[in-house]
């Protein structure tokens, strides 16, 4: 009895010690309040202008390098550009860790999850570019459409990231395959499904998509929702006025799941990665390829593109008959824009910012064929037709919409995209998919 009492007391003491130790250690672990914005640590100039990007995106790094030896060479002398890159699969994790230690690069690609960027904005980790560009007198160098797309994405009243890309999304199609099978460019969802059936019967894979990445499939769900329920349908979900499990939203996921059940995405879309899908389309392995206009650089690359750039057409996501949305509402995004860290922002970085905003658009278009959200002063004489097509589509679009996960939480985005492949292979029904994503969004 006595022994058990002593043992009990010792146990309680050990438990108390563990608890107290844990609380003391955690209390020392970091600030419980967000850091204040606009740190002026870098105001004196650090002598270095650091860039951190994703390995998969070489355009930004290449363009910055070109600027550092050309238009921005004076800025580069004051603060030398140094570049680093990491894999996109762990991008958001890395940014979270760096931001938590105020160790973000001077300029870096923004998080893939808008909710994380909102955290950066609310905790003052990134520079308010609207104010800074006004101060530098270069606000007019950012296209209003691109600025408003980024502001809408982050739900902010100001610009917090630069549009190093400005993309439209839609179906790119193989003209030859459609012509060979007597198919006109589909204008409605029903036409598209009928065309897919015709192609499948002819032994042609109707859709090419990377189910491994997931988003090329979930984009279709989002676009169907926009066409069927209107441009504000996903904002209603974000605001809690509607749920993804509502029948009208489930119908969108069901429409895509039916394509998957019919095998229109190929044998095993869940294991197809981005590069494989791109290669498949560019070697004639499928008729329709939903993708953003950033892929135009791949389409214009003769080594990659075996079907020929002239053989590729673009069609907007088709209308859903009787739907509230319009085919003119172009899905648009700013790719992965770049943000500037408040912790290192100073005079040298401001000089770099001004130079980038003034020159990036021209250099990226001339060197990489990249359409950006910056004003362009010189259009290259030998600009490829597909690039011109993208520019014209952007110029003529009366309005734009975002994408399926744009307003989701980090968990919602992750769950949606990891289940995109299962939707494309018909293993998940629309209802199952939407239930998973809604639950993840609710945390």
């Amino acid at each position, binding site marked *: 009895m006595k022994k058990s009492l002593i043992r009990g007391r010792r146990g309680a003491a050990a438990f108390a010690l563990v608890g107290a130790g844990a609380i003391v250690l955690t209390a020392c672990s970091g600030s419980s309040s967000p850091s204040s914005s606009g740190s002026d640590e870098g105001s004196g100039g650090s002598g270095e202008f650091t860039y951190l990007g994703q390995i998969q995106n070489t355009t930004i790094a290449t363009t910055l390098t070109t600027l550092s030896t050309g238009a921005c060479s004076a800025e580069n002398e004051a603060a030398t550009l140094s570049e680093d890159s990491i894999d996109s699969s762990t991008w958001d994790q890395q940014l979270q*860790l760096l*931001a938590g230690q105020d160790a973000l690069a001077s300029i870096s690609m923004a998080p893939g999850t808008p909710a994380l960027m909102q955290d950066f904005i609310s905790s003052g980790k990134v520079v308010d570019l609207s104010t800074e560009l006004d101060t530098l007198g270069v606000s007019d160098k950012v296209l209003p459409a691109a600025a408003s797309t980024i502001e809408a994405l982050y739900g902010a009243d100001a610009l917090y990231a630069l549009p190093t890309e400005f993309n439209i999304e839609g179906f790119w199609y193989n003209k030859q395959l459609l012509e060979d099978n007597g198919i006109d460019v589909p204008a409605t969802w029903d036409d598209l499904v009928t065309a897919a059936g015709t192609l499948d019967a002819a032994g042609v894979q109707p859709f090419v998509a990377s189910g491994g990445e997931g988003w090329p499939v979930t984009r279709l769900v989002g676009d169907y929702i926009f066409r069927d329920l209107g441009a504000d349908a996903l904002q209603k979900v974000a605001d809690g006025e509607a749920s993804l499990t509502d029948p009208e939203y489930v119908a969108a996921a069901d429409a895509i799941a039916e394509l998957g059940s019919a095998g229109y995405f190929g044998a095993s879309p869940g294991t197809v990665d981005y590069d494989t899908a791109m290669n498949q389309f560019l070697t004639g392995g499928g008729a329709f390829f939903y993708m953003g206009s950033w892929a135009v650089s791949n389409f214009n690359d003769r080594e990659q593109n075996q079907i020929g750039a002239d053989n590729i057409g673009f069609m907007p996501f088709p209308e859903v008959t009787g739907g509230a949305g319009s085919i003119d509402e172009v899905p648009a995004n700013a790719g992965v824009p770049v943000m500037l860290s408040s912790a290192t922002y100073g005079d040298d970085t401001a000089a770099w910012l001004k130079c980038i905003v003034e020159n990036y658009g021209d250099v990226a278009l001339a060197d990489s064929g990249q359409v950006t959200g910056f004003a362009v002063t010189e259009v290259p004489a030998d600009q490829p037709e597909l690039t011109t097509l993208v520019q014209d589509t952007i110029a003529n679009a009366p309005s734009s919409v975002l994408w399926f996960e744009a307003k989701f939480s980090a968990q919602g985005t*992750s769950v949606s995209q990891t289940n995109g492949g299962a939707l494309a292979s018909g293993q998940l029904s629309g209802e199952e998919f939407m239930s998973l994503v809604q639950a993840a969004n609710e945390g």
Partner: protein
Amino acid sequence: MDSVFKDRRAALLMIAPALLVYTLVMIVPIFWSIGYTTLDGNAITGFEFVGLDNYTHFFQDPAAIDALWFTVRYAVLLTVLQVGCGYGLALLYVFYLRHKASWVRTVLFFPVVLPTVAVALMFSKFFQAAPTDGPVNTIITALGGSSVDWLGASSSAFWIIILMDLWRSMGFYAVLLYAGLVDIPAEVLESGRIDGASGLTLVRRIVIPLSLPVLLSSVIFSINGTLKVFDTIVALTNGGPGSATTPLTLYMFRTSFAYGEYGYGSTIAMMLTLLCLLVTVFIFRSMRRDVTKG
């Protein structure tokens, strides 16, 4: 020398550096993590004390329960298979292959030294279904069957993970258990044979009881290793299709670093630690009882 070790202060001085490093690297993070389980938030948005809410949430979170169920299924099945196959191979080395066993041991141990990612890549190519068929599907189609989406279906993906990890690890357990079997005195086996024991009877009555300590170690190694599986699954399926092959470790990683919920991520880690602890204690107790009875 004895007098040095008898001097408590001298002994303490000698172990102090190692103890300090161990405390900083192992003990402090554990306490830190326990503290995080009572918080919500991350380093960017700040932390808020939520008491035991994270623990309550764990038991109400379907994704966590699914991950826990996957982890337990995977751990139990793979432990049985890798220790069972390893034991079978060890018996084969000792009783049948004897001195010729060294090259077989080398061949079967080879997968253990291969990098996990390389093995996962190899298996994903073996079972590939798109854009072209891998060797397995090529054989199936050559035999008149149709191509199977092995890694795209949750049930088959689970079995491929099991198969890959079994292939990768059974050589290790075979060597480990072989070391235990060669320690059994030849006289004991000989006297057993003289008494009429042979084949399965010899294994059941003499070999298993005498190799129980090393068998126990193998089971504890295996169950703890498999409960904490991470790299093989990330490399082969990344937890997919969907979340069908997501173990607790991967869910913890995503929760902490992709979703930015450090508190809940630490809670998942704590639950996994408790699970490992419980299973280890259970195995120790049940095996000890058997040995005493035997």
